[in-house]
């Protein structure tokens, strides 16, 4: 394996040095586009948003420094706190709901029955159907008229008078959540399925010997071995949740009232409708801090519940 290069080392040490340097040169060169991209499109903008957050800037006139005024306004802005509440409520339902549902689907897809792969394709499909067109389809499904909207039509069959969904202060957010849960579809389940298939069969057998029932085997064998994937899904779920935009923007424009005013929609409105770039940057910078804190906390807590196989 590496013996060939080791031989070269012994016989031609000077060439080895330059070879190593050459490797580093190409390593950095291949990395260069990413570094430029990071500085210009990620690192730079994060720092810039911190600075812009201290200014009044409407993109037409030159920005001027206002110190902490944006943040002072933010902490008195009921819409800001509402957008936090909406986003957090959504996260608290959709992330665990998505993980539990995906785990259930994965267990189902792990059953050794004929034709199960056809179902896998079907389950995955919603995940690729995102964006405007799908949101428009959901608006149609949530149409409150039981002769038109499929959901209230079905509820009507069971004798339930369906709510006004997207036009209701109470039901608009649950409707958006349902859409999101549907959109996750089977994509996370596919990740979990790979994890389930990696669980060594002998662990189940050993647990059986110890008298563990099916439920106990699930909790004490399957779940611990799945925790790295659950953790991964959890972290990416938080980031994804904070980026929620298109679905509610098309379905409700953040309404009715403020009922589905997600953090992202509020940033968008401030920046590109009200042209309050400074204010929006302050919000974005706060989001960055919150995400940093949540992620750090998650990684810290993960050592208590995420199980990594030794070896």
């Amino acid at each position: 394996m590496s013996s060939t290069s080791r031989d070269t080392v012994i016989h031609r040490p000077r060439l080895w040095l330059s070879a190593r340097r050459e490797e580093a040169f190409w390593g950095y060169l291949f990395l260069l586009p990413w570094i430029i991209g990071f500085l210009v499109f990620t690192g730079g903008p994060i720092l810039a948003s911190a600075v812009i957050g201290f200014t009044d800037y409407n993109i037409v006139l030159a920005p001027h420094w206002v110190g902490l005024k944006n943040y002072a306004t933010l902490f008195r802005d009921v819409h800001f706190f509402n957008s936090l509440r909406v986003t957090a409520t959504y996260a608290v339902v959709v992330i665990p709901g998505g993980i539990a549902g995906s785990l259930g689907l994965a267990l189902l897809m792990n059953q050794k029955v004929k034709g199960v792969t056809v179902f896998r394709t079907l389950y995955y499909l919603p995940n690729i159907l995102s964006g405007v067109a799908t949101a428009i389809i959901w608006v149609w499904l949530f149409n409150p008229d039981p002769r038109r909207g499929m959901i209230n039509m079905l509820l009507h069959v069971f004798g339930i008078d369906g709510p006004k969904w997207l036009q209701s202060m109470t039901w608009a957010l649950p409707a958006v959540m349902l859409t999101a849960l549907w959109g996750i579809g089977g994509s996370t389940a596919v990740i979990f399925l790979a994890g389930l298939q990696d669980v060594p069969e002998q662990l189940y057998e050993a647990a059986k010997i110890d008298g563990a029932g099916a439920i106990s085997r699930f909790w004490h064998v399957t779940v611990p071995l799945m925790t790295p994937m659950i953790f991964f899904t959890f972290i990416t779920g938080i980031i994804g949740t904070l980026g929620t935009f298109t679905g509610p923007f098309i379905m409700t424009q953040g309404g009715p009232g403020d009922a589905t005013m997600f953090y992202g929609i509020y940033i968008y409105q401030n920046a590109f409708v009200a042209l309050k770039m400074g204010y929006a940057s302050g919000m974005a910078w706060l989001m960055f801090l919150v995400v940093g804190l949540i992620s750090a906390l998650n990684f810290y807590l993960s050592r208590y519940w995420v199980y990594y196989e030794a070896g």
Partner: protein
Amino acid sequence: MQRLDSSTVTALAYSTTMTSGRQRRHSRSYRLRRLLGTSLVYLLLVFFAVMLGFPLFWAISTSVKPLGQVAAVPPVWWPAHPLWGNFVEAWNRVPFLIFTRNTAFITITTLAGNVLASSLTAFSFSRLRYPGRNVMFGLVIATMLIPGFVTLVPTFILFHRLHWVGTFLPLIVPAFFGGSSFYVFLLRQFFLTLPLELDEAARIDGASYPLIYAKIIVPLAKPALTAVALFEFIGHWNDYLGPLIYLNSMDHYTLAIGLAFFQGRFYTYQNLMMAASLIVLAPCIIVFLLGQKYFIQGITFTGGK
């Protein structure tokens, strides 16, 4: 990865002899229980398939109904004479041709940029050794944790200053710089599975690193690169926020923007509205059905192992 210690092996051997004996004794009730279990599994599989598939079915069903049947009581599950012409009518009501051309252009160029850039970065991280490599990779992973909204405003200001707002450039150019960290991660994982001896042998034959990338790694990594390309296709085809803030004229609009813009035009024609939405989604569905193997492999590869 899985290490067997001796006690597990003994337990395993013990358990196989035990269960086979038990199975033989209770074979009839065992078979009955198995049959019940299988039926339950199919029942659940079908239930979830209906739950997840029904929205799409209802959209398709609505799209081929005459307007009179859209709100019929009792509901028409599938029209006796599907009006496929609704798709032609929806297509003609909106400048779909321009939107499709723009979307295809943006999608293909960003896809090419991202596949190229992320594979170069992943190559550097997986096949080459140099000081600071792991720190840089950590940085790539860290950027995965940054929601897009954090950089949205300053990036917009940057493109505004460059006078790029109103062109495709803000949507396309970033793709060529390093690619998204998710794809870098996925491709690095895949590249690491390819034996390093390939590179070493090529080096001895005098191949340069760009040549190793182009002639050895890229051809071997086709399944992973295809997965990235497919994810990119779906992502950019459906992208809304980017085009929403950067494009401002009808001849630059993408399908997502155009569809949202013309929503009002279909307001009272839900059948045409569904047809228009399905026209926008059709390429994604086709791409997915053709490449589903790569989707599944790709998503499995990122599973946080």
